[in-house]
């Protein structure tokens, strides 16, 4: 039921929802989260995402299975891009399907929180002549802790 992809190509949110629903009518809630390349100061030229092929897919599958064990989901989809992206480009998509909204919302947030702290991706930002690796945020670790009880 869980489906994960790690790809260079962009994704189409509508298409992914349609594929996940696959014509079924017992779904009551579809939640999507899309993460995009942010350029707050107007100086970011591009962002390059490096990942660990093999482990990335394995880790996203582990996280998706964990979400399915915690909530009554009718389907889930995680797509994470790698390679060089520009401001405004899509980075990550999470879709969750459930009969009721709470499970779909919570599972989507759980998937993103775990992905941020566990999926082996590293972002490098190019601004002008300077390329620098993005620092990990402590708030991501804090976000993870709320699911650990």
């Amino acid at each position, binding site marked *: 039921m869980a489906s994960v992809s790690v790809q260079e190509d962009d994704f189409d949110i509508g298409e992914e929802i349609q594929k996940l629903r696959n014509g079924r009518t017992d779904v009551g809630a579809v939640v999507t989260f899309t993460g995009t390349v942010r350029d707050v100061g107007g100086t970011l030229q591009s962002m390059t995402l490096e990942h660990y092929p093999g*482990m990335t897919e394995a880790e996203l599958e582990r996280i998706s299975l964990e979400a399915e064990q915690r909530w009554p989901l009718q389907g889930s989809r995680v797509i994470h891009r790698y390679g060089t992206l520009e401001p405004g480009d899509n980075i990550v998509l999470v879709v969750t399907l459930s009969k009721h909204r709470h499970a779909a919302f919570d599972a989507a947030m759980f998937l*993103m929180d775990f992905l941020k702290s566990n999926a082996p*991706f590293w972002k490098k930002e190019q601004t002008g002549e300077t390329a620098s690796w993005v620092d990990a*945020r402590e708030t991501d670790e804090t976000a993870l802790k709320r699911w650990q009880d």
Partner: protein
Amino acid sequence: MIIKYFSWIREGVGKNEEDIGLPDGVSTVSNLLDHLCEKSAEHSRVLKERVFVRVAVNQTHVDHDHPVTDGDEVAIFPPVTGG
């Protein structure tokens, strides 16, 4: 064992991966990191601050006290920043 490096640790070491035999006296991730720090100044510069060093053994996140054996795929990288 195969050792893979990612992100600024990969850049600091100057290689994507290296194949080394299990050194004498190395039985944990922590021992392995100590051994690698002795290999070169480049290794030492990016691996000595252990708080920034994350490790996966056979594609699973592990703590630094996790055992390592010859034939393991060990990946060394900074905290992840995807999503």
